């Protein structure tokens, strides 16, 4: 496998919701390639189409037009039972761990839930769940002794670590992080970003990192796309996005970053 291998290739992705007067064009003709090992930032405001894009990439939704392929295999148009390869290899961490973790499940069950999926078991074979929980909890900086506690017994940052451990359980190739630090305090944000950075390196992951915060994207990602009204308006290495933005919209986003007065 070459370093340049394509993980995702999306061509002409379009998604329309509703019809008639309520018709919303959420995504319009988006072409995107995500390469192996890349850290791609997806930046844009609410309603820009970021979430629609990642939902289509992860096959949680079907495009109105266009197609997605993953690791060279077509995704669009295939029935769910043939998508096992994608389900295991692509995992998502959501914005709000208070909402994405089932409050009635103990941490041990939450983390091993992906491993109980028949589709993922067919891909991975049987893993020893307890050993895997220990491994993952240690990897994300949690104490294995807490495996039989419930999510509400943890702080916001710790809950996000649990969500990350769950995402890593089926040994994915791609981690999609959808605003993973937006619901967290600034002081906790740094811990989670450092953790993601370590894990992506350690497990050789490809990361798609969705955020409205350009400061965070600059820190985490090597390349970023800027989305607006369902289209990609700019795509560039993050360093040049900051030093030499090409569109007025990117400039407006940069100007909106709160600046430190007197510092």
């Amino acid at each position, binding site marked *: 496998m070459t370093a340049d291998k394509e993980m995702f290739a999306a061509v002409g992705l379009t998604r329309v919701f509703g019809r008639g007067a309520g018709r919303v064009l959420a995504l319009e003709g988006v072409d995107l390639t995500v390469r192996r090992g890349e850290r791609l930032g997806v930046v844009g*405001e*609410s309603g820009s189409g970021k979430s629609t894009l990642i939902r289509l990439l992860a096959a949680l939704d079907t495009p109105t037009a266009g197609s997605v392929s993953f690791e060279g295999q077509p995704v669009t148009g295939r029935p769910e039972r043939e998508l096992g390869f994608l389900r295991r290899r692509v995992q998502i961490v959501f914005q709000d761990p208070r909402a994405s973790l089932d409050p009635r499940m103990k941490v041990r069950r939450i983390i091993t839930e992906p491993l109980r999926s028949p589709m993922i078991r067919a891909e991975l074979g049987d893993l020893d769940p307890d050993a895997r929980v220990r491994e993952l909890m240690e990897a994300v900086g949690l104490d294995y002794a807490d495996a039989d506690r419930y999510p509400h017994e943890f702080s*916001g940052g710790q809950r996000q670590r649990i969500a990350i451990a769950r995402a890593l359980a089926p040994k994915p190739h791609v981690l999609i992080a959808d605003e993973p630090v937006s619901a967290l*305090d*600034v*002081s*906790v*944000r*740094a*811990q989670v*970003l*450092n953790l993601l*950075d370590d894990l992506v390196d350690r497990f050789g992951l490809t990361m798609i990192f969705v955020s*409205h*915060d*350009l*400061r*965070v994207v*600059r*820190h*985490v990602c*090597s390349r970023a796309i800027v989305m607006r009204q369902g289209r990609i308006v700019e795509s560039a290495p*993050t*360093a040049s996005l900051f030093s030499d933005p090409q569109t007025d919209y990117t400039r*407006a*986003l940069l*100007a*909106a*970053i*709160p*600046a*430190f*007065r*007197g*510092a």
Partner: protein
Amino acid sequence: MSLLRVRDLTVAFGRRPPVVRGISFDVEPGQRVGLIGESGCGKTVTSLAVMGLLPDNARISGSIRLGDVEVVGSSDRAMSELRGDELTMIFQEPMTALDPTMRCGRQVAEVLRLHSTAAPGAARERVLVMLGEVGFADPERIANSFPHELSGGQRQRVVTAMALINSPDLVICDEPTTALDVTVQATVLKLLDRVLASQNAACLFISHDLAVVSELCSDVLVMLDGEIVERGTASGIFTDAQHPYTKGLVATSRLDLVEPGSRLPLVEDFYAGAER
């Protein structure tokens, strides 16, 4: 004389240990004070105590004086005369602060009518002027809209209009831009800056984000585990913090100073070996 004078304020809920522990601070007329700290440090409880909005099971001791009125122990009736008039609040989530069944213009007018004897026609006039002041080019249309017809930023501007229409002495802002997009946040912060200045209103601005506080406030209080651990001018705090927690907060918010891809500093890094 200080506009707001808080002395030895302690708040506990039920039998649990206090969440605010003997804090004291002042806000002068027209002064803007940022109150920063992480979730659970007691900043929102402090602001609710000042507003007299704590639930019945809260046990409060100490003193909160707003002008010559003592808030602690004041009746609900006395407080509701203050609230919305001399003392107002802007909350984090504008959708929950607005009544979904009422047109925005009426909601703003209600605040006005409750605290003055203005005739209904005159109230409408002042509402439209106020909506213009918070940056709406078409106040008439906004006044006739229901909250769900507006975007998050527009809603927060309506809430700002409600908070400022009676020319309050003190506006408490509890994370007013946290739920908003960055560009909208920038607009709302500029707007707050302008309206607070034009009415010479003082402000207690609560946030976990130092960068946001630095845009608006001249002075900063840093809160940790129910206590104020550091206070000073905004520029002083950002350039020359003393308390390890403050140093950590400053460092974690300065993403712009860190080489992209390198390890971010943590608050813990600033506690030399000791647990906080």
